[in-house]
């Protein structure tokens, strides 16, 4: 469970991020009018990511080949890539809201996975689920500390956003 949720899916998103520079300027510009301050792109990425947070979707991706295909294409193309395009356009507030929500989500899911009496995915055992929960709690704490350190002591440059 840890491997699929917290390693494979983030790596797929990272692959999409790295693919973004391959898009031509024209394609990026076409979408930019609908992506002011990167909000639409970040929203798209978040909504698609929500699907891959559902235990049911994770199960299906292991059991059904077309769902697996959907995961391998949608995560890079609809999560990583839009994030890569939109993040630089997003201002401090948009990024801040997204990061706070992401950290809160790590804590919530971590908590949920460690206390849920039932197995949420039929492909993973309860122990696996609890392990994933603990890792998510650790990720939440680490992200919090990192962000706090960056804001309090780091070098931050805030520019006008497009």
């Amino acid at each position, binding site marked *: 469970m840890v491997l699929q949720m917290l390693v494979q899916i983030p790596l797929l998103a990272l692959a999409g991020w790295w693919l973004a520079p391959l898009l031509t300027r024209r394609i990026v510009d076409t979408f930019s009018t609908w992506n002011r301050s990167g909000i639409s792109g970040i929203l798209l990425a978040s909504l698609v990511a929500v699907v891959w947070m559902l235990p049911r979707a994770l199960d299906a991706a292991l059991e059904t080949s077309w769902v697996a295909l959907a995961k391998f294409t949608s995560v890079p193309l609809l999560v990583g890539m839009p994030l890569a395009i939109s993040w630089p356009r997003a201002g401090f507030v948009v990024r801040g809201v997204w990061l706070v*929500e992401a950290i809160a989500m790590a*804590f919530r899911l971590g908590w949920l996975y460690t*206390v849920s009496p039932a197995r949420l995915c039929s492909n993973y055992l309860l122990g696996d689920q609890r392990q994933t929960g603990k890792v998510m709690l650790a990720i939440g704490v680490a992200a*919090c500390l990192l962000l706090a350190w960056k*804001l309090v002591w780091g*070098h*931050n440059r805030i520019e006008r956003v497009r």
Partner: protein
Amino acid sequence: MASLTMYPEDERLSGGNRAAFNLYIVTAVILFVLMMLVGLTMRMTQARWLDVPPDLFYELLSMHGAGMVGTMSLATTAVMWFFLRKYVHLHLWAFLANYVLFLLGALCIIVSIFVYGYGALWTFLYPLPVHGVGMWTADSSALFMLGYLLIGVGSLLFYLDAAAAIIKVHGNLGRALGLQWLFGGKIDPDHPKAVVASTMVIIANSLGILAGAVVLVMSLVNIFYPQVVLNALVAKNLIYWFGHMYINATIYMGVIAIYELLPRYTGKPYPISRPFLWSWAVSTVFVVVVFPHHLLMDFAQPRWLAIMGQIVSWGAGFPVFLVTAYGALTNIYRSNIRWTMPSRLMILSMFGWAAGIVPAILDGTIRINSVMHNTQWVPGHFHFYILLGVLAMALSLMFHEIGSRAHAAPDSRADRLGFPVYLIGGLIFVFGFLDGGRVSVPRRMAEHLQAWTFSDRIGSIGAILVVLAMLYFAIRITVGLLKPPSPSWAPEPVPGPIPEPVPSPLVSPAPSPGVVGVGTTNAAG
């Protein structure tokens, strides 16, 4: 350094800024009066002068707790915004988004309480919200929590915008707090105290809101999927992390008014110093970890957390309080301060903060806490420094601002009567609670024994005076704010050469427009 000019140009409100500030303040004073009436109803019920049924009492208590905490945050956010915008560029949309989300959140809370009967109090302690035993449903609790989420998102937007603006000017939050000067170096005398205090609030309250975002959603999960059972102690820790921080932050937002306004009324500069920076730095850390003092009676709480709660309680409020109170007293000493409403309220707030801290520190001591915590001692201590401390800070800015519109620091005969009514009423009211605590009257009880009613009745009389004074203040402030801006400030900046800044004019014999000495005749009264 804070300006000595009574009404400096860079504070002038016009257009959207003025409308937004008026919205905040008028909404806040109306809500204060309404919530105080709710409080008075409860106090008179405890005194057995009114006969409110217990289920309605708990609805009123939920409304009063959530409503007062939210309104206090709304009012002090306006204080922070009013001064911080002079030093960094804040966006009006963020300030307004906070207001709109606050109203939407308040609507959810009001509907959940008065339409669907929610009565699990402002602390929504798990698992009470899902155990309404027929008085309220889990859905109404969900609506109440949704209201909190909306209010929290609004605050977060405002803080993020403020953080962005501060970082843009100062590079990072550490420099804004002045950490670079803690151990040496020449402190920039123009480093604004408003920036230091706002930075502390942004750091502490954002962490609190994060804790709230986690526990609120988890409580919602529990409401809709009761199979997911939460650890009640973890939930309580997170709830107090969020709730305590949220109300505590109001002091640190409100105190900005003292730093900015006091020197104008005393005519003496109020310079920034190393102890000041140290106190805010230490409090930034302490305020984040002080909340366990709400859980000293929870025997299952790890021992080290309880001990930390006690030690940090003794230290958390003290540094900022001591430095502020000492700074304020030295600022007033031999200053020839002129007593008008803003200056009176500022000094009252210092007293309320100082005196309210004493019962708070006592209650933060484990030995005392195990006897006093569930008694009326607790509402006694927090009403002390909220009513006579924080609210007085916010009111001082409101009166100052209506002074700027009327060209004179407010000091009418009615003001001079309203102030002592508020002060004396407030003291009687809080001592009613503290005396209840002394004789072990439990808090949060809809029905009181006959033997307890002496302090309830005294408290009710004090509360009536407070409500009357606040009603007067609310009308005075609303009318004052809705007046058109003073003629000199009315038009938008005229094209052409920028006027020279007006020289410091505390008591100017012939006051220049917009720069009114405190000694000028009172046109507002």
